């Protein structure tokens, strides 16, 4: 996938006639493969909604979102599954981990599907993010910051053209935040992928090609 275009998209809840000042909603916006974007927003302006529309688990919006010109509303369930395995990766704000599985299993459940990384590569990620000794623990027992790192490793266990990071460093310190940034930008560079980060203030230190105000 080369580009994601947003054409006059607007969440239905915003369609009450209020004037909207946004570079994304009710406007023409585009994300290109290989570039890094920061979408800045105040809370309640629909930042997570935007990602859920692009990622295909909500459709309550007007306008169009297109992948290389194809309206994403026309994709079938299996096509979405293929995109989520090979083109689009995401770090959810609410993480969406499985609390009853261990940290390692949470990553493995994705990697078993894509067979993208070798076990030692996943190990290296755990070590690099400082949660190597937490691999065997149920995710439900980890702190939110630790879970955030597990979810990121899971997001990296697949080929992608775009990776979305929804407030990726909200619960991380400076050090871990920059390690995470390096991991993501390293992986994206290897794959020639685009990065789209959302933030309500504190954001990951990356070289952004474009900043958009939501």
């Amino acid at each position, binding site marked *: 996938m080369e580009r994601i275009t947003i054409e006059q998209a607007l969440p239905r809840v915003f369609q009450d006639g209020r004037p909207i000042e946004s570079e994304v909603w009710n406007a023409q916006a585009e994300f290109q493969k290989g570039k890094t974007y920061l979408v800045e927003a105040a809370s309640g302006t629909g930042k997570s909604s935007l990602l859920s529309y692009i990622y295909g688990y909500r*459709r309550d919006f007007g306008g169009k979102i297109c992948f290389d010109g194809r309206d994403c509303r026309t994709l079938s*369930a299996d096509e979405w599954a293929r995109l989520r395995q090979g083109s689009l990766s995401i770090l*959810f704000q609410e993480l969406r981990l*499985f609390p009853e599985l261990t940290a390692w299993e949470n990553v493995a459940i994705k990697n078993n599907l894509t067979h993208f990384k070798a076990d030692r590569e996943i190990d290296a990620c755990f070590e690099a993010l400082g949660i190597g000794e937490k691999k065997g623990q149920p995710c439900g027992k980890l702190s939110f910051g630790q879970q955030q790192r597990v979810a990121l490793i899971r997001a990296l266990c697949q080929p992608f053209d775009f990776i979305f990071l929804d407030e990726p460093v909200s619960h991380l310190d400076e050090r871990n935040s920059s390690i995470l940034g390096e991991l993501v930008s390293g992986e994206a560079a290897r794959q020639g992928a685009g990065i789209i980060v959302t933030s309500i203030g504190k954001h990951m230190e990356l070289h952004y090609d474009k900043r958009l105000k939501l």
Partner: protein
Amino acid sequence: MRLIWKLLQQHISPGQLCGFFFANLFGMAIVLLGLQFYKDVAPAFSGGDSFIRSDFVVLTKRIGTLGSLSGSVGAFRRSEVDEVAQQPFAGRVGVFTPSTYNVNAALDLGGSGAGGFRFSTDMFFESVPDAFVDVQADSWRYAPGTPEIPIILPRSYLNLYNFGFAQSRSLPKISEGLMGLVRLDIRIDGRGKARRFTGRIVGFSTRLNTILVPQAFNDWANAEFGEKRPAPARMIVEVKNPADERMARFVQDKGYETEDDNLEAGRITYFLKLVTAIVLLVGAVISLLSFYMLMLSVYLLLQKNTTKLENLLLIGYRPALVALPYQLLTAGLNLVVLLLACVALCAVRGQYMQVLSRLFPQMESPSLLGTIGVGAAIFLAVSLINCLAIRRKINSIRLHRD
């Protein structure tokens, strides 16, 4: 797959599944047993007189004292036969044609020469259309001019001789086969003519209580030797449903009488069908309820695991793959139920077949394959519906935010 299963088996309630399992097992076992029992028992009633397919009732006019004195023969008129044929309970209707000529039958024992015995008796013949004859003998045919006449006797005659006469006089008992070898010397006369025939007993009937010859012979002989037009005094009626109360009412209103207990036997068959239908219905209702129970508990399971299922779909699992563990679970349970129901079927059938084979030794036992086929069809249909419903539910989870 191991991780998916580890994840999705959360919230599975063994109690609910057990409940479904046993309910479904009972339902399935009852349905299969009911079917098989009917298949096993029905031949016992359809052999010989074949009154499982249709019933035959012989109607006569009531013989009153006044009628006897006045010499009225109580014959049926054409209009009365037609009236019976038009009744809703009646199928085919045939009349008994009596012989209007004289018949004398003789039997030579120990050879016809000196020292032999010769029994001789006056008797009569009757005939009914061939379709009503319950003895399927190939020789039940008469071509005008041939000297041999096939004869069917009531089975009660043979019994009367074997268990009454032969018993009390220490005479040998005669089997049906042996009777077939006996040749009767038949002499027919009327209108000043006479002719000899050889009579051969080709069978015994429980339905037709008369000395029966083929219709073709009787028609020919009545025309040749008969002294008056034959007036049918008995009528044979094929009855669609022997328990039809309209039939009983009609017979009573017209002052007719029914001759034998075929009506009773027919009622037993009808009763058997009814009981089987009720058993099948009960089994089907239990099966249906258990199916409903399984669907409810799977839906509940899916509901409890909604978030997990949604997350699996969001990390790239195809809906088909997410549905698979639940589909395998339900199909597996259904399969175990089918297998156990078949085992139960064999065990219970083994028991009742012992009793049945004592009651009806000559009865052949139908195969189990048909019933097991029905079981397999139910299994396939139920599993297919289960799988489709699960898939639909997963799809609705995928789109529930729409």
